């Protein structure tokens, strides 16, 4: 022990520092090589500012959505606070809250399943399109439709709640749901009856989808059945610019 201690002490400190730095360097080189490996990387000069703009816009969007949820919570709290001031007001307040829940403006928690979709890791054969080996807007939409048919009552994709105005859009190699740009892995959370999973995997449409996308192209689909599934609130616009209730004068007073 003493001899070893003496030997360690005899190693100059710069050698220790150098050894440490070299180890770190090795890790970084390895990490860098792995990051570079999977996909073709565009290296043109004009792309960096574009990527930065997208990242900045995404950050803005996150802040805006948080603000919307905050303001809605503030409004609901103010309504609840005023609800004591009469039967009509408290009935209306309860009806508004129920309508918001039905519209997807309130986060829900319940039994359900979570599906995960990831791009294929199969090398794309020459002459074939890489798009077929990626999870596209249509893949997500078809999976979600199968979930609805299997009895799901609330669904979100990567935290974006599906509502009556939700569209799934491919933009080049990227994917938009509601206002958000989503990136893989795609996690689809669905609340429904405990038989949701069994109903989904028994559906001929779902089986066909798995055959066509997973078996043929290597799109990776996996499941989880947690005790509770959370589906967040929709944090987008509910403003109607064209749709109105038909003949509002004819609506009987509640």
């Amino acid at each position, binding site marked *: 022990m003493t001899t070893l201690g003496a030997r360690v002490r005899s190693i100059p400190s*710069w*050698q220790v520092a*150098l050894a440490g*730095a070299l180890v*770190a*360097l090795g890790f*970084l080189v390895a990490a860098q090589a792995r*990051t570079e490996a999977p996909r073709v990387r*565009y290296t043109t000069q004009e*792309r960096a500012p*574009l*990527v930065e703009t*997208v*990242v900045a*816009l995404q950050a*803005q969007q996150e802040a805006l959505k948080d603000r919307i949820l905050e*303001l809605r919570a503030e*409004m609901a709290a*103010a309504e609840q606070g005023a609800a004591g001031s009469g039967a009509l*007001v408290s009935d*209306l*307040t309860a*009806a508004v809250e129920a*309508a*918001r*829940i*039905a*519209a*997807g*403006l309130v*986060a*829900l*928690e319940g*039994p359900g399943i979570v599906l995960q979709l990831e791009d294929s890791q199969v090398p794309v054969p020459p002459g074939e399109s890489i798009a077929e080996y990626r999870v596209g807007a249509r893949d997500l*939409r078809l999976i979600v439709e199968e979930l*609805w*048919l299997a009895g799901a*009552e*609330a669904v979100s994709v990567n935290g974006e709640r*599906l509502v*009556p*105005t*939700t569209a799934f*859009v491919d933009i*080049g*190699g990227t994917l938009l749901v509601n*206002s958000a740009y989503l*990136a*893989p892995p795609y996690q689809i959370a669905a*609340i429904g009856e405990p038989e949701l999973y069994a109903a989904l995997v028994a559906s001929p449409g779902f089986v066909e989808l798995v055959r066509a996308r997973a078996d043929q192209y290597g799109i990776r689909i996996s499941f989880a059945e947690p005790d509770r599934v959370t*589906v967040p609130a929709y944090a*987008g*616009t*509910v403003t*109607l610019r064209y*749709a*109105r*209730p*038909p003949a*509002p004068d004819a609506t009987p007073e509640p």
Partner: protein
Amino acid sequence: MKQPRSQLALAAIALLLGLLVVVQLRAQQAGTGLETQSSQDLTLLIANLTTRNDQLRGEVADIQDQLDAMAAANARGETSVGRLRGELERARTWSGEDPASGPGIRVLLFGGVPAAAISDLVNELRNAGAEAISIGGVRVVVGTTPVGAPGALSVEGTPLGPRVEVMAIGNPAVLTGGLTRAGGLVAQLQARYEEVLVEVTPLDVVAVPAAGRSLAPVRGVPRP
């Protein structure tokens, strides 16, 4: 002699290390699939995110106005019956619990239309900003999915028949343009399904009914 050389080596290693840390961090920061997109796709994405962020800003301003109006009404000691009714109407019209009417378009599809074509159409209408949609007189709500073999389609349990009528409320010019532009959905459908005919008509007034089922969650409970 030994001391300056070792310092030089350390400096070089430190420089390299620093560069690699920066490169690695930047790669991870942008590790959201963006680094694999072309400049053209990124430009398109920026345009979309900008538009949608503007809409979200509008929503923030809208809710803020409502909150201010609420506070002002409270200060005057007014009841909030009118505001609550307006809010109720808006939420129910938007979700489909109430019927709706407004300007929009009618899309007629003839001849062996597959269920997938109808859901492609609904998705495209939503993307073009449709605010309320019906298929064969059935209101499309969250989860409405057409099913069945071509010619024997049904939606929410209602059979559709051979001619499918889809109504959508929204800006008629924008909705029509979104569908009928070159390479748009109508062109895609007619290329994919030769026997399918699609007819798009802008209308001043389109009416869609209320949903035929309850939209209240059965298993999900609101999260505090």
